[in-house]
């Protein structure tokens, strides 16, 4: 089953293209790297894959759900990791996990345990914490916005069944 499909997806604002157009198809358990010309373009592409931003051209599906028409259903299948990661302390992280458990209607203690397991595997750091938050729910697609290469490799061991999209900026910049 295709977990993610993007067909000629592009995003423009005021006539200016904010990312390079792309097409992509990904099965469950598959990996893809999405190259973009800048850090901002990579972030826009990641948000489109996660159904957070709607493409201005083309069409993207998460599972059977079109991201422009059924964003809540699509988002329910996606874990999104922002480029900046999660910079809060341990208490803030616990609060955020509880918050996500409420929003995704999950058992809170199970969600905390799952986040702890992910952090044990990935170690500390803002990006690892953001991944732990993204994996609180049992997602079919994990979207990583410009991850460090060592983290991108480790994530596969934690979420073996999920499709993983990692955006990469060809001109890197500090988040």
């Amino acid at each position: 089953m295709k977990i993610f499909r993007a067909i000629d997806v592009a995003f423009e604002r005021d006539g200016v293209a904010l990312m390079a157009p792309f097409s992509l198809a990904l099965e469950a358990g598959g990996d893809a790297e999405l190259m973009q010309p800048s850090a901002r373009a990579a972030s826009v592409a990641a948000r489109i894959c996660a159904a957070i931003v709607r493409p201005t051209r083309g069409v993207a599906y998460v599972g059977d759900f079109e991201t422009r028409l059924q964003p809540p259903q699509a988002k329910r299948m996606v874990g999104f990791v922002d480029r900046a990661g999660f910079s809060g302390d341990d208490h803030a992280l616990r609060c955020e996990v509880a918050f996500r458990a409420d929003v995704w209607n999950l058992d809170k203690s199970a969600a905390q345990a799952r986040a702890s397991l992910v952090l044990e595997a990935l170690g500390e750091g803002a990006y690892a914490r953001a991944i732990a938050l993204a994996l609180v729910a049992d997602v079919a697609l994990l979207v990583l916005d410009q991850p460090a290469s060592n983290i991108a490799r480790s994530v596969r061991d934690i979420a073996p069944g999920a499709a993983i999209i990692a955006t990469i900026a060809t001109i890197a910049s500090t988040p």
Partner: protein
Amino acid sequence: MNEFRATLAIVRRHLDRRFAIDWAMQFGIVAAIAYAFTRTFAHPILPLLIASTLAAASTAERTHAESLRRLTFFAMPLYGRQLARAHAIAPSLLALSIPAGYALGSALRTREFPLPLFLAMTCAALIATLVSLSSIFREGVRAWLYVALAILVGPIVTLPYVLRPAHETWYALALTAVIGFFALRAFGETLARYDPLPL
């Protein structure tokens, strides 16, 4: 998806220490204004204008706006209308500090504060808040136009009370319910169409 649980989680997130400080500060400022000027406000339109202006401005305030624009809210599996309802509760509670503060300041100075005026101020502040919420997700002139609209619409819904204070408070409440419903729907549409782009 348990919509009530999700809504409650978002509301709890907004009701933090900063919210309590903002509520107390707004309450205090309005109480001071009322204590100083209530005797010079011969016509009820003046406190109603103050209520809607303060409510619209505090809703569109930058720090508050940034908290609503956090990316985490847009990654959640919710429709725009669900997010709008959850986001509107905390600002509406904040808006209640305005009539409450005015009632305190006015009562301290004149030893009386009519309930119909309290209800009318509540209506004006709530409507200004709900309309002003849509300005948060717009930029430049369009954002300012929404704030101006909020300041204007707040007193307009209380016109039945302003024109005939003794009898028409219920009409103002009914008008508030109708306009508030449409303002909330417009905010939901705004959220559904908003694309949170990286800087």
